[in-house]
């Protein structure tokens, strides 16, 4: 609402108010990144990876997440249920928004927990067409924002916000030179995205649907269906959540390497 007034003012007056608009846009983006950070969750997920020839590979997982004390980073434990040859494989991801994340994998065939070093935020998130940055969220303060337009998407009023990296380093680390985000005005959920690669070529499209207010008390929302498509190689990922539950009083010892080896 502030934004509209600011915009109206910006049309009539001068620069200082545009800065005010900037501030508010960053705010909106920040809110959109927090809207799906639930206290904890348990869920079943089906990952469908589709290549350019339309061939599919399906993985089923059971996942548990818990927000860390800082309220930003998540701990995520994912157990693979199918296909059979990877059943029992567990991944544990401890996000560190300040630095490199920690990731461990338990491989039942080797009966060992192995540590993975995830080198950067631009690489694929567990083999999907989402990058770590896309899933965990790009640091709000590192990007410049601009309101491109306001429009309806999936029947909801949205701000269409353009984000551009403030520095070359941010561009290189994220792999993006430009992002367009559709953020719903009613609940701040980012329901669509389009990305351009470092060379300025379109590279990805996201679409989040089947939105559910999973924690009405805290105004937390989650999309039950997440789609991402790499438009350069026509590879596509669809993540479908089921039995998504929040506030399950998930214990911290779920997120230890010791626990991964169990069963």
């Amino acid at each position: 609402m502030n934004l509209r007034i600011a915009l109206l003012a910006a049309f009539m007056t001068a620069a200082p108010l545009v800065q005010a608009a900037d501030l508010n846009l960053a705010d909106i983006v920040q809110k959109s990144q927090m809207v799906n950070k639930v206290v904890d969750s348990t869920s079943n997920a089906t990952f469908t990876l589709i290549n350019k020839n339309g061939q599919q590979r399906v993985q089923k997982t059971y996942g548990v997440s818990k927000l860390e004390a800082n309220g930003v980073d998540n701990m995520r434990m994912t157990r693979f249920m199918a296909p059979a040859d990877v059943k029992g494989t567990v991944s544990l991801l401890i996000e560190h928004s300040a630095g490199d994340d920690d990731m461990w994998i338990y491989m039942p065939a080797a009966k060992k927990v192995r540590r993975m070093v995830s080198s950067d935020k631009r690489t694929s998130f567990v083999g999907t067409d989402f990058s770590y940055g896309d899933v965990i969220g790009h640091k709000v303060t590192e990007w410049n924002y601009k309101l491109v337009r306001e429009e309806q998407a999936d029947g909801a009023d949205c701000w269409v916000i353009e984000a551009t990296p403030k520095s070359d380093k941010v561009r290189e680390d994220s792999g993006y030179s430009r992002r367009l985000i559709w953020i719903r005005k009613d609940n701040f959920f980012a329901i669509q995205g389009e990305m351009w690669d470092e060379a300025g070529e379109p590279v990805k499209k996201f679409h989040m649907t089947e939105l559910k207010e999973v924690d009405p008390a805290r105004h937390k929302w989650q999309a039950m269906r997440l789609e991402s498509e790499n438009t350069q190689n026509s590879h596509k990922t669809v993540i479908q959540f089921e039995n998504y539950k929040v506030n399950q009083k998930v214990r911290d010892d779920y997120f230890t390497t010791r626990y991964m080896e169990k069963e």
Partner: protein
Amino acid sequence: MRGYIGWILRYRWLVIGLTVVITALAISQARNLRIVIDPNTMLPQTHPYVATTNEVEKVFGSKYIIVVGITPKSGDIYQPDVLGRVQRITSALMQTPGVVKENLLSLSARRAKDIMGTPDGMQVSPLMREVPQTPEQYAQLKAALHRNPAYMNSIVSQDEKTAAILVEFRDTPNAGFRKMTDAVNRIVDKERSEAVQFNIGGLPSYLSRVESYSERMGFLLPIAILLVGLILFEAFRTFQGMFLPLVTAILAVAWGIGTMGAAGIPMDAFNATTPILILAVAAGHAVQLLKRYYEEYFRILDQGGVTPHEANRLAVIESIARSGPVMMVAGIVAALGFFSLVVFEITTVRTFGIFTGIGIVAALILEMTFIPALRSLIRPPSARERNIEQRVRVWDRIESAIAHIVSNHRRCVYAGAAAFAVAGLIGMSMVVTNNSSKTYFAQDLPFQAEDRFLNSHLGGTNTLALLIEGKDQDAIKDPKVLHAMDDIQRFLEQQTYEGKPAVGKTVSMVDFIRRMNQSMHGDDPAYDRIPDDHNLIAQYLLLYSMSGEPGDFDSYVDNDYRLANMTAYLKTDSSAYIESLIAKLEPYAREKLAGSGASLHIGGSVPQAAALNQTMVHGKILNIVQIGAVVFIISSLVFRSLLAGLMVLLPLLMAVIANFGLMGYTGMYLNISNSLSSAMAVGIGADYAIYLIFRLREEIANGLSEADAVRLVLSTAGKACLFVAVAISVGYGVLMFSIGFNIHFWLASLIATAMMVSVFSALFLIPSLVLTFRPKFVYKGVNK
């Protein structure tokens, strides 16, 4: 027939007008002609090597790869002069339309990953995120390359003095290969400097040259036509003698192209030389009719009582009435022979058959309509021209010498022909089939040297694609299959060609799984092997996928892990060698894969060439045999004699033997281009014999003695044959000067050889055989 020609002459303006309209229509339709420069049109699509290559391309991509090598003038690749260029060229190529981004491979490409063991696990990261700045960073890159052998000899040479960028282009055949090479050159040219040397190679680099060198035909063809005209002028010494055969030939080519355009039959670059054949055949018929017209004109004039104008009209009628049916027979025989090629599987051969057939039919129609109409309008030859034409010159001396030999020394003729045939057959046995596109060009051309450089410094610029097909999903994760693939790779790497390793590099999923197994065991070399547990392999792959990109392995395995692609880079593109290699590889792979349910299929650039060889050895020869058979059958039917069929076939056989003999003795390869030339020889050879046989029959029926008939026929129809053969040989001799482009050189020598051999075979053998066997089909008129 006389009534028909009379009708044509009465309505000559209408005939000429119609011809102009049809020609204009043909030219307008020629704009609809689709020109396809797709090498696939040359390939037998159902051949297993070709089918596999297509399958590999569909699932994995990888046919049109350009290799850019960067070598510093001093030192190794670990310097900003080299790596900076690799990075800039890679990122520029990423933004180039047509480039398959996900298959781009270089040190800075996203999918080039360093798999490294760490004390408590594994790290997967890009090989070179940015150009190293410090000695430590260079050392890191070097170490990464050393621990990931998959990249050695593909994007970095063994001596680490050359870095390479492998860029794949989407298959858009009709856009042309120059579009690919131009795009790469534009980017590379910006990076050229004194400090580094660039070498560019790969299949598109050759195919783009085939395109540009083939375009020389655009100016060589007119020169050839001009030379043909000059020779004809020297032969007839009249403007008419030079002009009319060329008009027929050029219009026939135009009609042929127009019909192809209107019917939507695509033309391909490999048929760029086909107009020559039409030109040769059309000119051949035109010269025969023209020569006959001269004879008749002076005969009628000498009888007296008619004006030159009337004599002209009568001569036109008489010449067509007598030679027209002969031409129709000869033309239809040849056209049917060519049309019969539509049964062939290779598109380019079908196009060749249809195009030539249409061209010949067009020439027949023109000679029966437009040319007589036009000739009746042209001033008849003057007495002066007649004197020049009838002066005894070299042509006549040759013909009378032949007549003398045929009448008096027939045994020598047969002995000579037999000796020639035997010599030709011996040469034929030495013919080597090889479809290497590298042999199309002179060895000393710069791009040949660039390809040789890349070939010797990297794995090899020729590929063998091995497709492993499992029964079910995840078959490729089966340790049995992976072990077999591993063994096959090692087997290939041990092969030698001319004493040196034949395979410079093999790459497959095996390399990555071995590498992961090793890095998960703290880089212990003892674990540089395929694990024996299917689940462990699956879990490694899942693990990799968590830090790699979804498309990283797309060029090695399909989505279902049912198909795996193994690539072997070969130093040689000899299709003979590859056939011997495949003969060894197939039983080896069968044994290794036994019990796994998986099977091996072979494809790739070199096997495709081998496939082409196989279809050519069996198919192209068959194709020549087929035209020959059609010629034989129709000639036998026309003359109602098998002997006649054989006689027509003989000069054509001699021409084919001579062509193959020439290939054998000179080491010229039998390839698609040269086999087309040989098929041309078959088409041209029959005409001479048919004209000679008909004329002999006519003159013997007129009551001439055998010796006189032979002398007369050789000095008239025979002389016309010689004119045509010499004109076409000399005209196409001009292609010998297409410097650096062997295809043109070969074509010139083969066409000239075929022309000369078939004309002299016909001139010597047809009269000799007639005199020896006195066949009924020649002598039947005598009995009346």
